[in-house]
């Protein structure tokens, strides 16, 4: 280790050896490099490996024989995915899931934030904290408990809503919505927290000025509240869209990955890669998902940058 080595230029004043202090650049390298190296080894390298696999034919279950089990086959995996009509159903189901859950979270979260922000009582902090609890719980365990909650025979969900014995979990026509409900329950507080942060940052004088002009409630909301909170809502939208698109643990907890499970991309990716062991096909699907995420995020970020100006 070079920092601990005695430098040749060591001071030897008064017969005592002074070590030359570590140079800033050495310290900087020592501080930053471990993180970068770790990320390269565990994140970037696998990503390139995955990219390579997606252009080959490979199954992790078979013995590795170079030239046979991975065998380069070009873009066949990608073209097979994109021409598969089943896959389009999965894309649409996933998109539906994202739109419904994120849409619900944005509306409810913002509404709840407005309520909390307008109210003035001492337990406001307590209520916010309690509402936030679902967000930091393990999705798969929460999903498991909702599976019990939804149970058609003795579940409390149907009972509380006064519904009959509706099967929310194993009915393929309905279980996508049952996951959407749990997703909204879990992540509405996220949008709420960000909205409250946005609302508290609006300077009071704007409203006072509007008050003098006798602006209506709706006008104030539309011209002051909404534009001021908009950037934060967009941040919430970006985070939630990415997370909802790659949702895996919540459906695993509620429905599992079996035949009745909703046709979500991430569940399919798991089945393809680790149940039927079409590793390379799975990698290609993973890459397509990654491209969708990057594309969506960059569109949102463009809007965000525009909003910030």
């Amino acid at each position, binding site marked *: 280790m070079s920092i601990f080595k005695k430098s040749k230029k060591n001071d030897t004043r008064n017969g005592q050896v002074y070590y030359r202090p570590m140079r*800033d650049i050495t*310290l*900087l390298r020592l501080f*930053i490099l*471990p*993180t*970068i190296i*770790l*990320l390269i080894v*565990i*994140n*970037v*390298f696998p*990503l390139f490996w*995955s990219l390579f696999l997606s252009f080959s034919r490979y199954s*992790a279950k078979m013995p590795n024989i170079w030239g046979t089990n991975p065998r380069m086959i070009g873009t066949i995996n990608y073209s097979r995915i994109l021409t598969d009509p089943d896959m389009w159903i999965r894309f649409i189901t996933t998109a539906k899931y994202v739109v419904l859950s994120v849409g619900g979270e944005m509306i409810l979260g913002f509404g709840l934030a407005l309520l909390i922000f307008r*109210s003035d*009582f001492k337990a406001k*902090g307590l209520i916010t*904290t*309690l*509402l*936030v*609890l*679902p967000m*930091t*719980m*393990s*999705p*798969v*365990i*929460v999903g*498991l*408990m*909702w599976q*019990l*909650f939804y149970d058609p025979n*003795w579940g*409390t969900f149907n*009972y*509380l809503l006064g519904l009959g014995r509706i099967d929310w979990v194993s009915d393929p026509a309905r279980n996508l919505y049952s996951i959407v409900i749990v997703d909204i*329950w879990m992540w509405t507080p*996220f949008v709420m*927290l*960000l909205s409250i*942060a946005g609302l508290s940052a609006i300077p009071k004088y704007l409203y006072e000025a509007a008050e003098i002009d006798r602006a209506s409630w709706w006008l104030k909301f539309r011209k002051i509240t909404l534009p001021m909170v908009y950037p934060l809502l967009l941040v919430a939208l970006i*985070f939630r869209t990415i997370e909802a*698109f790659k949702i895996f*643990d919540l459906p*695993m*907890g509620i429905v599992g990955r079996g035949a009745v499970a909703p046709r979500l991309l*991430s569940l399919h990716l*798991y089945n393809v*890669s*680790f149940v039927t062991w079409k590793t390379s096909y*799975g*990698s290609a699907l*993973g890459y397509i998902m*990654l491209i969708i*995420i990057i594309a969506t995020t960059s569109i949102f970020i463009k809007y965000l940058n525009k909003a910030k100006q």
Partner: protein
Amino acid sequence: MAIIANRKRRIGRWVLIIVLIVITFIYLIPFMYIINTAFKPWTGIKVYPPTVIFKPSIGSFIRIFTSRTVYPPGEVPTEEEISGMKWYERIVYKETNEEVVRLGDFPRRYLNSIIICSISTLITVILGTIAAYGFSRFNVRGKDDLLFFILSTRMLPPVVVVIPVFLMFRFLGLTDTHIGLILLYIAFNVSFAVWVLKGFIDEIPTEYEEAAMVDGYTRFQVFRKIVVPQATTGIAATAVFCFIFSWNEYAFAFLLSRKIAQTVPAWLPYQMGVLGYDWGAAAAGTFIFLLPAMVFTIILRKHLVRGITFGAIRK
């Protein structure tokens, strides 16, 4: 006029408060339901309509902690044997007619969760703090690109990275080991830690450091004796966040652990006993498992916004 407007406002205020309390109550029903189910006796779990008031039983908690077998017909224990049983054995026998064999798998899985999450959190926070200090105080070439690169690794869907990670771990023999999951969770959380901690360290004025350096402190001494103590709150908050993230992590744990290093989320949903899926025990396990995350969330409440947005928004 003014009095009426005032009274109207006061009524409005109370309506708002009541609405909020009702919403919060409805919101917490699933949690109350978990606690309710965890304390139900064996026969009460599958009762419809669900009961709210009943004689609580800790049978579910005993069942999640133990491994049991059903008494074969004809070998029912005699009165004498029952009176010789330990208290928990008697409860289990009375509720499900089972015999306690040994300690169950749950304590082991819980311990795994604690070990893996604590060690990975500790290392993540150390790496994150020093990297964040580097990024905060020095002009690194391509700093923005590097920071964005660090963040982008977090945005990858776990299901995409997990295929090559699975192959790599299998090649290195890291599958189902504590070290494997610890490494993975460090990599998974370090990007988060760097971003949030950079925000915290940016807020510490540099004047103290400069003054200390004039007084002859080296950079490292400045970091250790001035920056770290001032960033303690931030470091603690980040640590709690990292702990919660790895505590809740499922995709990697589910795929890369089978038995030895398995954590609770990867284990709890797949426990079929001889009597079918034991929902009471699952609820008891869930209750014990969610408790730390709940406590931490309450401790963290002031830093939540900052944490969930990777430090992008500082309230």
